[in-house]
């Protein structure tokens, strides 16, 4: 694993009962880039992220973060935002912020409160009462308020209205710097295409295509969205 690689995946397979969600996936993720993890529903995007975040255990294969195998300590280097509503319903927004501040040493509580004010999420709101748009923005704000190496956002634009999508895209763009790596999964390719450095196309649990976004655009003579439609036209 070279120094520029933050994540290395070797022959990763994940099976559920008799279904194979990921099959022999191998790839490297370089530091300081924004990756688009693309594919339709059921292609394995969420499973791949959950294995890296250690919410799921792989059936076989290996994942290395900063050169070390996954362990509970490596969760410190990963800021993962699941696509599901995972925040405790009984909490108020301020409790969720405090929870992150208590659990993650790299969490910037002041920054989080500033962002919440900006995106108009009241800390006194109960999480169970938030609309899907506000919940989406809160999840992104919490994940991006950590100051860590690898950010994995699973469908950050899902179930979010157009205006909130712009806000979320702006938050992501603002959080990026050359020391941070982002993996963003989505099937809303057009919304996110402009910020992607590299793309990973997953199809039926396998890596179908992986490469630099600009090079792919030039070599294939089409946008990433066009390429997406081409890859998955029969899916």
């Amino acid at each position, binding site marked *: 694993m070279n120094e520029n690689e933050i994540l290395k995946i070797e022959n990763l397979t994940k099976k559920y009962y008799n279904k194979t969600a990921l099959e022999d996936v191998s790839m490297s993720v370089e530091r300081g880039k924004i990756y688009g993890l693309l594919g339709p529903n059921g292609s394995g995007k969420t499973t791949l992220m*959950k294995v890296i975040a250690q919410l799921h255990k792989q059936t076989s294969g290996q994942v290395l973060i900063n050169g070390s195998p996954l362990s509970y300590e490596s969760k410190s280097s990963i800021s993962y935002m699941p696509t*599901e509503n995972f925040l405790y319903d009984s909490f108020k927004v301020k409790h969720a912020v405090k929870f992150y501040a208590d659990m993650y040493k790299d969490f910037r509580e002041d920054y989080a409160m500033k962002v919440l004010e900006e995106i108009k999420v009241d800390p006194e709101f109960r999480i169970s009462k938030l609309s899907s748009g506000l919940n989406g923005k809160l999840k992104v704000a919490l994940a991006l308020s950590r100051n860590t190496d690898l950010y994995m956002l699973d469908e950050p634009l899902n179930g979010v209205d157009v205006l909130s999508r712009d806000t979320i895209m702006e938050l992501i763009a603002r959080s990026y710097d050359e020391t941070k790596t982002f993996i963003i999964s989505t099937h809303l390719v057009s919304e996110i295409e402009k910020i992607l450095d590299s793309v990973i196309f997953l199809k039926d649990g396998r890596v179908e295509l992986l490469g630099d976004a600009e090079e792919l655009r030039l070599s294939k003579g089409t946008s990433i969205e066009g390429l997406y439609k081409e890859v998955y036209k029969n899916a």
Partner: protein
Amino acid sequence: MLKLLKYEFIRKYKLITMTLVSALVLNLYLLTKGIAVSSSFLLFFPLILAVLYVSDVIRMYSDDLNKKSGYMLFMTPNSGYKIIMSKLAAAVIEGIGMLFIYFVFILVNGAFIIYQTRSFVDINEVMNDINTLLSGNIGINLGHVFVFLFAVLVFVIGFIVTVYTAMTIRKSIFSEIKFGGFLSFIIFLGLNWALTYASGEFYSLVSPHYNSFVNVTTVSASELLVIMFPVIAVSIIQSIILTLCSGFLLEKKINL
């Protein structure tokens, strides 16, 4: 671990408060209905508390393993051992809290009854009266009650750890197997059988040392503790082993 514990209680403070307030209101209402009704409540209240307690501590872990909100806990950089220990510590604190509340209820009701008959209350007198009542009618004192409650607490923890271990196995080594839930239940029954068997064997092994108690008509609280030692010891050893197994599985094999 203290931070994990803190959030366990933040998550359930509403439920605890509601239970306490309801019990308090009910107790006050029943006190106005006379001593007999109030005493019946004190008799049945621990049973209700026990059912609520066991269902709450099982739900506390089950929700984290089976609902999406569990991601919030399992994404944090805490070891599996720390997570399971914090769950157990929360369960123990909650159990002790409930016992404490029950004793408060006994004292309050006792004081109320004494106040009704004598118009004044002396807390030492209340304790003496309870002690006299117990030793006079049943031949035991408060010391016996505390030894018994300690043993119950240890057994309850042993039971909770066994349930937690079965749930952990379901969400780890059996998570990719069909009928994993059924297999986990079988494991739970098997664990319980094995532990009861071990406890019995251990007791048989050490029972000759207890002959001195056989012909004694009254047993002191400390003697009772010695008599119950084998089963308590097995329960403690069981809890430690199963906690370590659960911690390992949570850390290395979990599939939420």
